[in-house]
């Protein structure tokens, strides 16, 4: 039996690597994906292109503007003179935010009245706009608090200042809140999923489509050996990709890996059972490579979007959250991020690992059952 499986493995490897370009797909594409993810996916908002319309032009208004510039979030590129220009820079997309200060700003503050400042943001990118609003209200609040204290100190003396809560923040696992540390481990999951699903589902269907399946059926190979021969090579390729992406992530992007590498590989093995099982399952219900590919994508796309890779699951509506429990990638991501960032082990991650093992065994069992029927 091992002899036959060995030959089958050799055949599969020859077939996969016969085409030099396939090596590119397997080994170069994941690195490109990782680089793009590492550099492109940043939800940190900085250098917001900002224009200023300062009608007051007083010491206080300039002080407030200086706070915006000093914060490092806003990049002031223009000082405007009238409302038409405000409309123009926002329409053209040149400015993401315009800060308008009306005449009388300083007078109001000196007189102890509330002064008004207007912030116009381009809401068409609602995510960035939300963050811009948050930054600006924090700056204004701090400045306004200082003005309040100045007035207070003048009238009542510094000893009578009101109590303040001072937030001392510490971010665990990712001290500087870098998006990269969050996304790079996630990319491992997405790459492994795509490569193993595609290779398994299409490789078997190809044999059917071009007729070589019949040749395999007449050989003494058993269905079990055939399944082994069709999954083990892709599992190995999946592992190679995990190692590749981990190495690049750790050494190029300096993503910390705080937990055990061994545990990472073990969890990958559990996860690969599921993806290979699903790949096999797709191959049993597809006749052509087109069908196999479309079906794979039909599974892959929601699996990625509902995994928590980019969108936090906790923000989804409840029925959708229940659906995500069926998504094996969800568990794998928790494990990967747990190992990379939190450095936790089986004590915390065993529920996820047990679920993956269960899902893996179930899909393998289901697909091999269906597979016998299609071979017969």
């Amino acid at each position, binding site marked *: 039996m091992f002899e036959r499986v060995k030959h089958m493995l050799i055949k599969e490897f020859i077939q996969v690597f016969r085409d030099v370009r396939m090596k590119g797909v397997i080994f170069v594409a994941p690195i490109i994906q990782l680089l793009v*993810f590492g550099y492109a996916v940043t939800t940190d908002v900085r*250098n917001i292109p900002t224009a200023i319309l300062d009608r007051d032009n007083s010491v206080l208004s300039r002080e407030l503007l200086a706070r915006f510039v000093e914060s490092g979030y806003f990049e002031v590129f223009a000082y405007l003179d009238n409302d038409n220009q405000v409309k123009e820079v926002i329409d053209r997309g040149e400015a993401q935010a315009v800060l308008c200060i009306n005449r009388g700003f300083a007078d109001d503050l000196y007189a102890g009245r509330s002064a008004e400042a207007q912030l116009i943001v381009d*809401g068409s990118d609602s995510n960035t706009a939300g963050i811009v609003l948050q930054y600006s209200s924090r700056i204004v609040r701090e*400045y306004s608090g200082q*003005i309040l204290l100045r007035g207070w100190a003048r009238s009542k003396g510094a000893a009578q200042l009101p*109590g*303040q809560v001072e*937030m001392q923040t510490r971010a665990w696992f990712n001290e500087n809140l870098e998006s990269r540390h969050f996304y790079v481990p996630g990319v491992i999951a997405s790459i492994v999923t795509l490569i193993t699903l595609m290779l398994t589902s299409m490789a078997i269907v190809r044999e059917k489509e071009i007729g070589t399946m019949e040749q395999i059926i007449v050989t003494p190979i058993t269905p079990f050996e055939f399944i082994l021969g069709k999954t083990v090579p892709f599992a190995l390729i999946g592992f190679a990709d995990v190692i590749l992406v981990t190495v690049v992530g750790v050494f190029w992007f300096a993503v910390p890996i705080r937990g055990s590498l061994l545990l990472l590989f073990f969890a990958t093995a559990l996860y690969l059972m599921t993806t290979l099982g699903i790949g096999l399952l797709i191959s049993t219900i597809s006749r052509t*490579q087109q069908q196999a590919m479309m079906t794979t994508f039909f599974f892959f796309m929601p699996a990625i979007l509902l995994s928590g890779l980019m*969108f936090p699951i906790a923000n989804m509506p409840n029925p959708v959250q229940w659906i995500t429990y069926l998504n094996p990638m969800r568990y794998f991501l928790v494990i990967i991020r747990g190992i990379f960032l939190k450095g936790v082990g089986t004590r915390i991650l065993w529920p996820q690992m047990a679920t993956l093992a269960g899902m893996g065994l179930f899909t393998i069992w289901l697909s091999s059952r269906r597979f016998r029927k299609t071979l017969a």
Partner: protein
Amino acid sequence: MKLKRLLAIARKEFIHVLRDPRSLAMAIAIPLLQLVLFGYALTLDVDHVPLVVWDQSESWASRKFISEFSGSRYFSLRGYMSHYQEIERAVDSGQALVALIIPRNFAMLIESGRSAPVQLIIDGSDSNTATLALGYADALAQTYSEGISAEKTQRMGGRPIPPRIDLRPRAWFNPEMQSKNFIIPGLIAVIMNVIAALLTSLTVAREWENGTMEQLISTPVKGPELIFGKLLPYFAIGMADVSVAVLMGKYLFGVPLRGNAALVFVMAAIFLTGVLSVGMLLSVVTRSQLLSSQGAMIVTYLPALLLSGLMFSITNMPKALQVISYLFPARYLVKLLRSIYLKGLGLEFLIPEALLLTVFGIAVITLANVKFKKKLV
């Protein structure tokens, strides 16, 4: 190039498509599913962040401070802790994202007018959620402090309203800042990009793999006739996807279309021609279905999702990546669709993007034609 032969190829390809109803159904269902997911389920907004509190002070002041958090929709209080280890455990297992530690002398410090340090521990692994949650926590602490000062002023008989600056924010084009208004128009571009390239990436490669290309070579059909003929049915599917997406955006999600609807379709058609040709080019060059579909996935799905500005704004990326993003046409269409949908801009504002889109389409379709050799090698 003869129209008759071109149409014959188109008809043959149509029959191929119809013969495989499952793939066709999926070509329609995948965009629908993606729209529904993005419209209803996927958002980067954050609320109800799970919070645990270790209240060492257990005073009236600390309870009032905690109620600022538990009463806001941004945090949901999951429990009280009494040890550091408990907090560690809750954050490690993901049960809580944020932990507040209020010191024993909190009430005393606040009463005596000094600043009271409150420790906030946050699970930073999801940096986006963490940043937003930090902002909320800051704002709530500020509100609390302001409340304390106002009370104190009143007690001392001072003026109740202190001078302060009132920031009046206004978000243009999307006043309620709903992420669906921002995502759905751009999503149309991404959906088309993927579906179109995936569909065409197989079509020529399949003929080579199955050996039917030899039969086609022996017919008088010319290269361009074959290419354009094969593009036609997929163009129809793609435009059907666009129509469905536009209708769903309008009636299901209520995304306002302020500009010209015809302009949306014209731009989509130009874009579609380009990305269909990308798939075609891959198919022609690789002659292998596995390879070209993998290639299509890599050059369309990822860049369209990440480098188009759909979710992650391009201005935040490193310069080199910003330059690279110009190579992927999804970037132009996302910008075009958003401007037409949300800003209601006309073509006169959008000439550079429209022009680049057209150039891209023409370049790729020409390349596909040039690369296609009607020869047995």
